[in-house]
């Protein structure tokens, strides 16, 4: 009982908190159903309609991207889970008990980030690989074109799908630190991913080209795509840029956590 607690102790405490509420289990299941389940559903539909597709569309069929389509739904479950790690504490008032136990707020913010990072890196990769493999099995059974993990471009796309999901979990968390309430955080998160791209679509096209490639959703697409349009960043730059966004949002959230009254 003598030695001082460290970041490891704070992280163990936060991990225990994360895994001891049913909402986490429900969140994880939702995440898996959206990421894997939707990809499987879409893949089956494509397979069933394959022979009715016109040949031109058969030619552009991307077995990798299609099997990973669930990522763009799973990201919402991931973001919500990231946000709730902090917003649920503000909602119940538990944040005060937490901060009384861990007055070093930077430690607290980091511990929560570590729990989310590790959990969603594992879940994100598991979900991405599962979606990919199941998708390819479906395409193979219907004699559609397939991708393969032995192809380095395909492997990279799958790995970065998991990375994208992990980063978006942390974006949700950072927004939660900044905004404090679950409802506001989810609105902003959804706006960034859904509404901002739509607004950008209405801008003059020469503007669009400059703005679109900076949007998180586009960065995700670029990270997972082998063939790039000239308007997008490469997968490497996209991954770096999205990581940078994430770090900035979480850091800003941490500063606000430190500064504001609980």
């Amino acid at each position: 009982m003598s030695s001082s607690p460290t970041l490891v102790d704070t992280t163990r405490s936060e991990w225990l908190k994360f895994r001891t509420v049913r909402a986490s289990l429900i969140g994880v299941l939702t995440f898996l159903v959206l990421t894997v389940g939707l990809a499987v559903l879409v893949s089956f539909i494509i397979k069933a309609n394959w022979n009715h597709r016109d040949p031109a569309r058969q030619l552009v069929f991307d077995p990798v991207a299609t099997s990973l389509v669930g990522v763009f739904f799973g990201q919402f479950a991931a973001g919500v889970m990231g946000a709730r790690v902090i917003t649920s504490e503000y909602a119940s008032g538990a944040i005060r008990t937490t901060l009384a136990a861990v007055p070093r707020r930077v430690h607290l913010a980091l511990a929560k980030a570590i729990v989310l990072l590790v959990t969603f890196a594992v879940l994100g990769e598991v979900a991405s690989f599962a979606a990919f493999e199941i998708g390819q099995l479906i395409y193979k059974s219907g004699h559609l074109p397939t991708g393969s993990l032995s192809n380095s471009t395909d492997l990279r796309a799958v790995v970065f799908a998991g990375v994208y999901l992990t980063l978006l979990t942390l974006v949700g968390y950072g927004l939660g630190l900044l905004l404090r309430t679950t409802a506001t955080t989810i609105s902003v998160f959804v706006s960034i991913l859904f509404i901002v791209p739509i607004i950008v679509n209405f801008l003059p096209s020469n503007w669009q080209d400059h703005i679109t490639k900076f949007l998180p959703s586009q960065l995700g697409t670029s990270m997972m795509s082998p063939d790039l349009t000239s308007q997008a960043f490469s997968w490497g730059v996209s991954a770096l840029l999205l990581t940078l966004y994430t770090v900035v949002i979480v850091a800003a959230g941490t500063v606000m956590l430190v500064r504001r009254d609980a």
Partner: protein
Amino acid sequence: MLKIDHLTKRYGDTLAVNDLDFEVQPGVVTGFLGPNGSGKSTTMRIILGLDRPTSGRATINGRTYEQLKAPLREVGALLDAKSLDPKRSARNHLRALALANRIPQSRVNDVLEFVGIASVAHKKVGGFSLGMSQRLGIAGALLGDPQTLLFDEPVNGLDPEGIRWIRDFFRSLAKEGRTVFVSSHLMSEMAVSADQIIVIGRGKFIRSGTVDDLTADAKGTVFVRSADSARLAEVLRAARATIEPVNDSGLSVSGLSSEEVGDAAFAAGIALHELTPQRASLEDVFMDLTADSLEYGHHDVEAAP
């Protein structure tokens, strides 16, 4: 020892705590008394590092809360019993606190047993009654066996048995040499549970002392009864007393001592059937003390540009 050092906290236009400055000594139960909105909870939150003071500071054995490495091993606190994740079980709540402060997990069962909620420790705290939540909060405060304990309105929601239990518990903590700081807005509660009382109003320090100190200099009233109470009232009013009739023949006299009342009646040739000095009740004392502070408060507001 807990030290409040010229502490001020402003929320926008509200001056919640206004230059509070006092010390809370170990070995006794110290009551923190003030009407609603007087700044008790704010002071407690600042002590725990939850809110940042506008100026001044609060220290525990010379260090601010942020400087404590394992705070729960030095300070235990119960602010709001419902400040818990409702979906987590009582035991997991305490286990998480223990982990964060490197407190042995065996303490979790010990404190659950001590406050008497071990049998429901696996249940979600959202379903707990206020009394059970209070007990869980106390368990959390005791988890790290701290030297300093803070409780914000701890008797709220407890039944009479629970209130008695918690009073005895505070006494035993103080007897062990710990610093025990307990807030309340009820003077009667403080009178029975606290050895030392600090009274605040509108964020400002008003008085401190034992219950006897606080009641000693409060002006009491004198109850007199006479067959001719109308004339007696006249006589006493002439002596600048304030009179309130009680029942048919009784008068409650303030502004004069019982000796002065007796002498005045004798001089006027009125026979007294009863002459009883009445000590001010605790609530009267409290109202007296804080009514003044409220008035100052009003002046402050009016004087502001």
